């Protein structure tokens, strides 16, 4: 991961990873990144931050799944109707 390159605007203040220097626009993403890429080097504090961020994401994913399912059903029935009419 350390071979990535980044563009950071002057007015931006990213959260930087202490281990590889990768910048993130949200603190939660940095917490997740630490747990995924540097699992063996984490402090207790970082581990619990990772767990919190991971669980918070579950909720967000759940809402996304619900919306996606809605779109799928809508898409399916729209096409069904159109095929019935044409």
């Amino acid at each position: 991961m350390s071979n990535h390159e980044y563009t950071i605007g002057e007015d931006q203040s990213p959260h930087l990873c202490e281990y590889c220097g990768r910048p993130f626009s949200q603190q939660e993403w940095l917490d997740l990144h630490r747990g995924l890429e540097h699992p063996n080097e984490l402090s207790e504090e970082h581990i619990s931050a990772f767990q919190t961020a991971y669980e918070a994401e579950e909720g967000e994913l759940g809402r996304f799944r619900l919306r996606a399912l809605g779109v799928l059903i809508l898409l399916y029935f729209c096409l069904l109707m159109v095929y019935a009419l044409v």
Partner: protein
Amino acid sequence: MMRENQQRITQLIVSVLLLILAAGTVSAHGASLSSGSREPIRVPTWLFLSTGGAAVGASFLLASFVTDRQFIRQLHQWGFPIHAENSHVAVTAGRVLGLVGYVTVLVIGFIGPSTPQTNAAILLVWVGWWAGLAMTSYLVGNTWQTLNPLSTIALVLPSLNRRYPDSYGAWPSVIGLLALIWIEVISPLAADPQLLATAVVAYSVVTLFGVVIFGRDTWFDKADPVERVFRYYGRVAPIGKTGRKIKFRLFGMDLSVPRLVDDFDEVAFIIALLWGTTFDGFVTTPGWRTLTEPLVAGGFPPQVLYPVALLAGFGLFFGIYLIAVELSRRTAETYLQSRMVAVQFAPPLLAIAAGYHFAHYLGYFLELAPALWLALLSPFSDPGTVPVYQPPSWFGGVGIAAVVIGHLVAIWVAHAAAYDLFPSRIQAIRSQYPFIAVMVFYTMTSLWVITRPEVALPYI
């Protein structure tokens, strides 16, 4: 742990079922598209195109239901090594076979029968190589690296080993690929054996010249377009090299491995490959004729028309991809450079290109394979009748299914690549929105082309 496993399995089953449903819907409608290619379809074109686009969009939503990182990684790493015994014997045999094919094309091309359907050179190049061998390269594994006769000849050539300029990168192969597509479209290479043999000689001269100047490995690694096409198609295949070992894995799973492409030049090559299959069909649509008639009537030189359209279309496809990259950086709120995002999501498009190639060439290959066999058995005689295999009427559905499967693989691989790049799963999903829009655009363009009636190329 139990609960997680159960959840994972349920997720997988639901996704697979829904994917099959999506694919089934499309192929059912697509089946009416053809018995034989390019017959007018029964549903209106706009509906056919929307269904294709919707299927791509729906597959993305379905893929996004799979959010288990570990499962995605396991699926992509699944596979087992294959022990190739006596590989140097196989390599020598492959090289000899390639050379025999090469000599056959040149000899029969220049002095063989002049009817294209009975000329072994024409059939070997178009049916055996560009249709047949290319299909094996993404269905089984890339063998061109060994078979390539020019690469074998290059073994005995001296080389000046000049330094290949880094700034050239893969651009010579991009230009080479576009040039080959242009020549293939405008000249009767599939009808005139002598012209074909001449073209092969010209291509060999250019290639061997490059080898002498820059060295065999550098030339075939960087600049040769054909070698690159087969190498990229080989990444879709289940059998391929991982490091020095030959490994069996699932279709397309090697596309998410980083470092297949490193920079914009290689991204451009993938886009050129995708655009090439579309352009090939596009110029035979009535739409192309309507579009160009006023231009030519207005004094636009018709010879310039084809290369300009080829380049403009490539620019359009590439430009749209680059816009998607910028939009993706925005939706994913990432600081990663455009280059990093562009190289991560270009390889999945190869699965789409392979799907289109299969759809285009499978019928062609099966129809003419008996003719190829007969021509190879007696290359100098000219039989009056040519055996032709007539595929059954449901056969058009296979092509549509190939296109759909190519897209499904591409969407899945892009999904995995996004998980690889971004720490947040919701961020990974958001990063895909612009690319899915691009895939929908590519799909609808290609589907539009295959639903148009085929007309002769104008002004040639």
